[in-house]
């Protein structure tokens, strides 16, 4: 469980790490849009090259990115099976003991796989190179213009940062409880269904109890320090957009534009 790669910050202090979080978020959103444009494999090629070079720039290991893919592997397999059964257009590629596998089924699956791979690469790039707190500051700033439409930007950012802050704590806590219950003979990997249900209950109930307790304590601690979401707050960390941020933004716009043209003409 300590090896969860998805959404973990990796401090390598590369140039990508030093970009402004707001620009990084916007850049990620633009690249996401580019991924969803129907630019065929040519478009994906362009984005793929960009994504790979970004990973190299950020000095993250490719193994780390691939690890983030693990949780979706099962879903992709499932998708392939469904596609093989449902999509019956194009030409027959293989005849699997009477089951005809059509080219479109394989193409369609490959499409989705590539899309997901790129999406995960880019989102992992954002979360692995931006400290969670910077990320929430960025989100808060980006949501600020919507305050006029009664979007509670600060509250949303605070909620996200609290949630992010407590993920490692909860993982630690659940590991501790699992170990404690294992000492009482709980075995999550073996046993009949009803034994497994009890085993899972023995983990979830204590986890809930302590989470509620922790939430209450946190609320008290925040109130004790005079926290109020409505009052105007200053910030310890001031975000500043510099030249390199604008350059990165311009480059991403350029990529988006080229993918749009590719989608238009190809």
């Amino acid at each position, binding site marked *: 469980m*300590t*090896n969860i790669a998805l959404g973990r910050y*990796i*401090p390598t202090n590369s140039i990508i790490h030093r970009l402004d979080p707001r620009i990084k978020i916007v850049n990620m959103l633009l690249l996401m849009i580019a991924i969803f444009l129907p630019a065929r494999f040519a478009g994906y090629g362009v984005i793929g090259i960009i994504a790979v070079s970004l990973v190299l720039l950020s000095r993250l290991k490719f193994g780390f990115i691939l690890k983030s893919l693990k949780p979706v592997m099962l879903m992709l397999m499932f998708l392939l099976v469904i596609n093989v059964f449902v999509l019956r257009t194009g030409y027959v590629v293989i005849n699997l003991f009477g089951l005809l596998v059509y080219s479109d089924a394989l193409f369609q699956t490959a499409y989705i796989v590539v899309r997901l791979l790129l999406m995960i690469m880019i989102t992992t790039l954002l979360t692995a190179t931006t400290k969670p707190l910077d990320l929430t500051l960025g989100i808060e700033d980006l949501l600020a213009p919507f305050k006029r439409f009664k979007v509670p930007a600060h509250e949303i950012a605070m909620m996200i940062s609290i949630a992010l802050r407590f993920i490692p704590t909860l993982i630690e*806590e659940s590991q*501790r*409880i699992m*170990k*404690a*219950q*294992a*000492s*009482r*003979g*709980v*075995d999550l990997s073996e046993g009949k269904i009803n034994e497994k249900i009890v085993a899972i*209950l*023995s983990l979830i*109930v*204590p986890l809930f*109890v*302590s989470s509620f307790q922790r939430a209450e304590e946190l609320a008290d601690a925040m109130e004790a320090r005079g926290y109020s979401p409505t009052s105007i707050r200053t910030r310890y960390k001031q975000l500043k957009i510099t030249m390199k941020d604008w350059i990165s933004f311009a480059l991403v716009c350029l990529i988006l534009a080229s993918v749009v043209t590719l989608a238009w003409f190809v």
Partner: protein
Amino acid sequence: MIIDVEKLSYEYSPNSVFAYHALKEVTTSIKEGSFTAIIGATGSGKSTLVQHFNALVTPTGGSLVVDGKRISANEKVKELKPLRKKVGLVFQFPEYQLFEETILKDVMFGPLNFGATQIEAQDIAQESLNRVGLDSSFYERSPLELSGGQKRRVAIAGILALRPKILVLDEPTAGLDPEGSASMMALFQDLNKSKTTIVMITHDLNHVLNYATDVIMLDQGSVVFEGSKDDFFNETNLHEGYGLVKPPLLELRSYLKAKNITFDDHTLDLDKLARSIKEGQRHD
């Protein structure tokens, strides 16, 4: 020796930026029937070491033998259940592991997992609850409505109900009031007298002085002392420093020495100390 640790190493998140050596080639042993205290500063590897004793954590290097069962690095441990039943491990703040609707059910949970029948489990649970000082009026109450100290008792009863041969305790008195802490320690001493080997992590040297027979001291993942309690307090200065508080009895001994009063300066027992002062004065 009931537990033999041989060159045991443990590394958290190996091969990553977060890699951290919690234990470095630790070699030590625990005598059958002893009351062994494991001490050391926070982060010295105490908790990691004791979690090896019932194979919750398996070594990344070296091995250990627990009551005849060998656990080695890079080797999957088979038949964990008998080991887990033999070595009862009480975590720090064990009250967070309670989850059943009633206290009796929660204590029965362990024995049932190890294959006891309902009736057997109920008998053992009642006995264990009585042992920790909770009478029948508690059986049907929810564990969540108890006070912190009572919850801790229920959690410890839950482990005692496994009838372990070795009882491992990770700071069992943390956060308890002095009275609750004393009665908890008396319970462990009682269990020790009825042949249960006790291994206890603690920061309280006074508990070590009053209850332990042997001491293992860790510092930054290595053993810095291993031996009897008497040797620990009389032959070394390890009890001073390392963030530990000197027990009152030792403070008294240094005070008496400074005042040039003759007494047996090796005793760790308050009554004996008092008697030796009397004798010393008679001689003068």
